[in-house]
Each structure stands twice: as C-alpha cells, then as structure tokens.
C-alpha cells in the first residue's frame, strides 16, 4: 500500500472505476447509495440516469456487448438492488461482463430488517458469477479490482459488489500499489488436438457450429479464417450470428427451433460438429437424443463445465479459442458436401413475395438490414420479432447483434440499445422491438429524451404477445389466453410525449420510404409497423422434436 490521499469509500469507487477505464455508468440513486452519488458529483465518470434499475442493468449489458468492455450499473439497497436482478441473470446466462454496485444499509443495521434492507448478497448467488459484500473499508479497493478481474476472466459474467452506507462514508488513506491479482486457478489444458485433427481429416460431412463464445473470445477473425481455409459449412446460434462473414457461401444461417431449414438439415446429416463457443442449448438441439445423431463432436470452449454437459465430446479443446482454433486449420476434401448444402441454401432461401398490401414483418426487417449503414448495432427484445430479426437481418460482427439469448428477457431491447449507443456514439443503433416487449421497459424512453440518444426503434406491432399466441394456436388448441394486446397505447403519441419523432405505417408500399426517413433522422425515432396478427414465425421445430421434423406452415 502506498499513496497517501484521504478518500471516502464513495470517492474511492470512482477512482477505481476510472483505473479500469470506465467512462460511463448507468444507475438510479436512493438512500443507501447517497454517499456514492455524492462522490459521483465530483467525478469525471459520466452517469446516465435510467428510469428503473432494470433499465440500468440492461443498459450496462448493452454497453458491454456493443463495446466489448465491462458495463457498470449502480442501484440503492432493497428494491433498487432487487430490480437489478433480472439484468444480472440475463448477463449471467449470456456471459456478459458487468459490475453492479449496490448500496446497503449501514453495517450496524444489517440483519435488522431495516428500511430498504434486503440480503442482495444472498440473492446474488444464483444470478452472478461472483459477488462481494464489503464490511471493511480497507477491503474495498481490493474487492473492486477483483470484481473487474472476475467479470473478464475466463468465461465472462456479472459481479455484484454490495457496499454498506457506512463503508461508502468511511475514509481510507492508503491505496494499493497496483491492481490485485486473482489467484491463478491453473488447470491442465484439455486439448485433444491430434485426436481432433484425425476426426477432422476423416470427416466427409463436417459442420462448424458457431456460438456466442466466439465474439466473447474476440476470435471472429480466427473463426472466419478457419471457415474460409477449411471450406467447412457453418451454422450459427442466436448469439453466434455475425461471427461468420455474411458473404461466406457455405454459411447456412441460424440453427435450432427457428433456424433455417438448410442449417437444421445439414446439422442432422453431418458426421462431425466442430463446436466453437457454443453449449448445445435446448433451443438449438431440439430433442437432444436425436440431435446430429451421426456426428462426432470436437468441442472448443473456455468453460470446462460445458464440455460433456449436454453432449459428449469426442475431442475437447479447452481454453482460448483464438489460440486454439488455428491449430486445427487444414484443407478438407468436402466439395460434394459443400455443393449439396449450397444447393439447399438456394432451394430453401427466404422468400419475401408475400401477397397483399399488408406488411410482412420478415420483409420489413430484411429492408432495414439492407438499408442500414455498415457497423449498425441492432438490439432486439424477445418474441416473434426477435426470431424474424435473427432470420432476416445480416450482421457483420457479433457485437452488432445484441439479443437476450439464454434468459430470453422481454424488455431487454430498448435499454440495451441505449447502452450500445452510448458506447458507440458514431454508429447507428436500432432497437427492434414488439408491442409486448417495449412496454416492459418503456420508461427508458425518458432516458432517450433526457440525453437525446439517437436510438432508432422499429416496433413490430401485431397487438399480441405474438410468440405465445403462436404457441397457443399450435399447441394449445387455439385457446388464446391473455395474449391479446389490442388495447395498447397509441405508440406514436407515446413517443411524441418523450419528444421522439415517430411514424405509423400499415401498408407494404410505405415500408422503404419510412425506413429511409428513420435512418436519415438525426435524433431518436420510433417507427411503428403494423403487421398481421396471425403471422407466425417459420420454420418451427416443435418442443422435444428432432430438428429435421420442423413445421413450415399450419
């Protein structure tokens, strides 16, 4: 310990944040975090006042995902802290590095059911990678450094630091000489490289199965290089979209429940899956026992616990994908397989010649995708619009498609777009939402207004909870229980109440001009797109069904 400058715990927090390169934080003040907000008053860290702590958490997630850095959010004790939980759970499920700072009642009052007291430390166990509660001012700096290290070490994830009010007010004069270091949990590398090479060179019908871990590992270039040099056909998970070059003729799109027909059939027929940063999620595999039934598996992952978790690996390569994948790069003799799948890509290509004047949601999203500038960052909420965005939009990097994959959290899209726009002020950011989802965090329109954040919102409006309605129609005998939203507010007027320019379109002929106007507008914009309420997302692999038994219509 050196340096002698007296700081309060609150002031120390912002010094440490700045040492970790944090320029922006998202939060909401309250009683038990007031000393931190008082220190913020003198800090160079820019704070964005969100209108709900869940919005702050999702903005931190969007910030982290768009910029490839750590997102930071702040909340007070009790309800402020519990409101962060959904965002932290989302970050845990999608492996996003977030540091959440919560205020806590003073240490003397802890455990007394004090006003706005909740055991957020206990609640955090199931929704964070790690958490701390600081009860000694002399531990605060070390804990804060550890929080950042843990968030970024290995498989990324959220870390919560709970700081009682008296610790925020306490003074400390000594500072650490340098950043603390985590104990090094050295494990022997699990690397069946020679076995993997043998599997690869003997495969006739291999598929590269690309997950969200590729972007997290900063290994997009290596994966693209591997795909190009091996010529291996590839499929992507929802979070893996953008990792493969959109121009790669051997890319088959998303696999899984709403994956492309070509992707799902190819995986089912494959004799080898090269899995990079993916985890055999149930939305990907369908009926697990029948997923890629004839395929051997080479599994690359940073997380030991993902190896053999849902599907046994014939060769496991644990560790840094960026360094490991090039070890397997080799030319393959798979021309017949490539040709067959390219033909499937052609035969099963999406069609946008939807009859009639009404707006076809996939066509809208395809048009947005075609017209948006390069390096546009798209966020989504959860539901039909999310799947249509995944199917019909093209992304040139995983950091340009931010969607709640593991947790499937409605309300994600708008605050995540705010975070993304703040982290990348020079890029276009578009939130694709639904009329159900947007109401989950609609208060964040006030955040957009306050800071004039130029997020564009494409609101796909079918006046339904569309995905649930689709499942009720298909699997619950059409008994439409609590999915009608025909009493939605007037979204155009709602946007205008927040000084956000807005427009409603209802006809196919209006689509292109409206999207151009939205993209050309200098500030925030909400484009409400009325679609047919009966429209379904196709294809669909029904629950507990093999992926080659997909439904393509009713």
């Amino acid at each position, binding site marked *: 310990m050196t340096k002698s400058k007296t700081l309060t715990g609150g002031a120390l927090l912002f010094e440490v944040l700045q040492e970790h390169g944090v320029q922006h934080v998202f939060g909401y003040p309250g009683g038990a975090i007031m000393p931190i907000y008082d220190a913020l008053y003198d800090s160079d860290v820019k704070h964005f006042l969100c209108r709900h702590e869940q919005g702050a958490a999702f903005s931190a997630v969007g910030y982290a995902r768009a910029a490839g850095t750590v997102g930071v959010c702040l909340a007070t004790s009790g309800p402020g802290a519990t409101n962060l939980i959904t965002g932290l759970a989302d970050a845990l499920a999608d492996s996003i590095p977030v540091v959440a700072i919560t205020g806590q009642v003073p240490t003397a009052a802890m455990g007394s059911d004090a006003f706005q007291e909740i055991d957020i*430390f*206990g609640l955090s*166990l*199931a929704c964070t*990678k*790690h958490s*701390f*509660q600081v009860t000694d001012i002399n531990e605060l700096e070390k804990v804060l450094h550890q929080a950042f290290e*843990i968030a970024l070490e290995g498989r990324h994830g959220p870390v919560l630091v709970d700081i009682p009010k008296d610790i925020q007010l306490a003074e400390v004069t000594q500072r650490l000489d340098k950043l603390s270091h*985590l*104990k090094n949990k050295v494990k022997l590398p699990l690397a069946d490289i020679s076995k993997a090479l043998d599997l690869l060179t003997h495969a006739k019908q291999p598929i590269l199965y690309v997950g969200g871990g590729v972007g997290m590992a900063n290994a997009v270039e290596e994966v693209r290089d591997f795909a190009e040099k091996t010529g291996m056909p590839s499929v992507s998970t929802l979070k893996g979209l953008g990792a493969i070059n959109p121009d790669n003729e051997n890319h088959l799109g998303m696999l899984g429940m709403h994956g492309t027909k070509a992707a799902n059939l190819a995986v089912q027929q494959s004799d080898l899956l090269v899995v990079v940063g993916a985890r055999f999620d149930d939305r990907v595999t369908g009926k697990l026992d029948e997923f890629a039934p004839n395929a051997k598996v080479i599994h690359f992952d940073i*997380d*030991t*616990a993902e*190896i*053999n*978790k849902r599907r046994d690996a014939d060769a496991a390569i644990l560790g840094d994908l960026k360094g490991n994948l090039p070890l397997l790069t080799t030319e393959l003799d798979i021309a017949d397989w490539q040709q067959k799948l390219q033909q499937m890509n052609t035969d099963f290509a999406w069609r946008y010649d939807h009859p009639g004047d009404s707006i076809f949601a996939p066509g809208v999203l395809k048009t947005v995708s075609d017209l948006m500038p390069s390096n546009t960052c798209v966020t989504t909420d959860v539901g039909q619009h999310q799947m249509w965005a995944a199917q019909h939009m093209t992304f040139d990097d995983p950091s340009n498609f931010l969607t709640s994959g593991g947790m499937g959290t409605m309300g994600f899209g708008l605050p995540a777009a705010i975070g993304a726009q703040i982290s990348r002020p020079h890029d276009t950011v578009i939130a694709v939402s639904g009329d159900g989802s947007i109401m989950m965090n609609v208060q964040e329109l006030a955040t957009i207004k306050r800071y004039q954040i130029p997020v564009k919102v494409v609101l796909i409006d079918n006046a339904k909870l569309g995905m649930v309605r689709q499942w009720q129609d298909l699997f619950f005998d059409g008994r439409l229980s609590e999915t009608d939203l025909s009493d939605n507010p007037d979204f155009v007027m709602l946007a205008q109440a927040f000084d956000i320019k807005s427009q409603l379109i209802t006809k196919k002929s209006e689509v292109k001009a409206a999207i151009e106007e939205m993209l050309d507008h200098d500030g925030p914009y909400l484009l409400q797109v009325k679609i047919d309420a009966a429209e379904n997302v196709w294809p669909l692999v029904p629950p507990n069904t093999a992926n080659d038994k997909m439904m393509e219509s009713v």
Partner: protein
Amino acid sequence: MSSMTLNKYQLIIMADDKQVVLERILQVTRYRGFLINGMNAEVNTGNNVATITMSVSSERPISLLIDQINKLIDIKGVKVDNSEVQIQQHSA
C-alpha cells in the same frame, strides 16, 4: 410405481474461507440436481482454508457437479471419493 437409480458420492472440497462460500456450494449443488445427504465443514485458521466433505446423490454424473463447483471463485479444489454407491429410490 417408478424407480430411479441414484448414485451416491463423497466430495472433498477445499476452499478459501471467504464470505458465503458454503452457501455458494449448497446453491450450486441443489441447482445442478444433487441431493445433499450430509456434510461437514472445518476451517484451518492457520491458512484460512476450509475443508468441506459432502455426501451427495443424484442420477446425474458427478463430473457435472465437480465442474460447476470448481468454477466458483473461492474453490481451491474438489475431489471425489472413489467408493461410489448406488441406491434405489422408489416413488409411487
């Protein structure tokens, strides 16, 4: 009446004596589908390392739990006792 075969294991976990490390282990064990049949925890105050022995049972392979416990930040290591026992559970 259906029956399932539960495998019973004895785990020995070494952990830094940090806040809530025991709660973290219990939470992960329950969430990952293992029943806790018994446990004992002691701390060596000389080096602040806790030794936790835990008897668990599950239909699931123990490697799934070991990998998840190992991921916890304060864990130094997990060993499984080799003497595995199978028990039958019957439910109506």
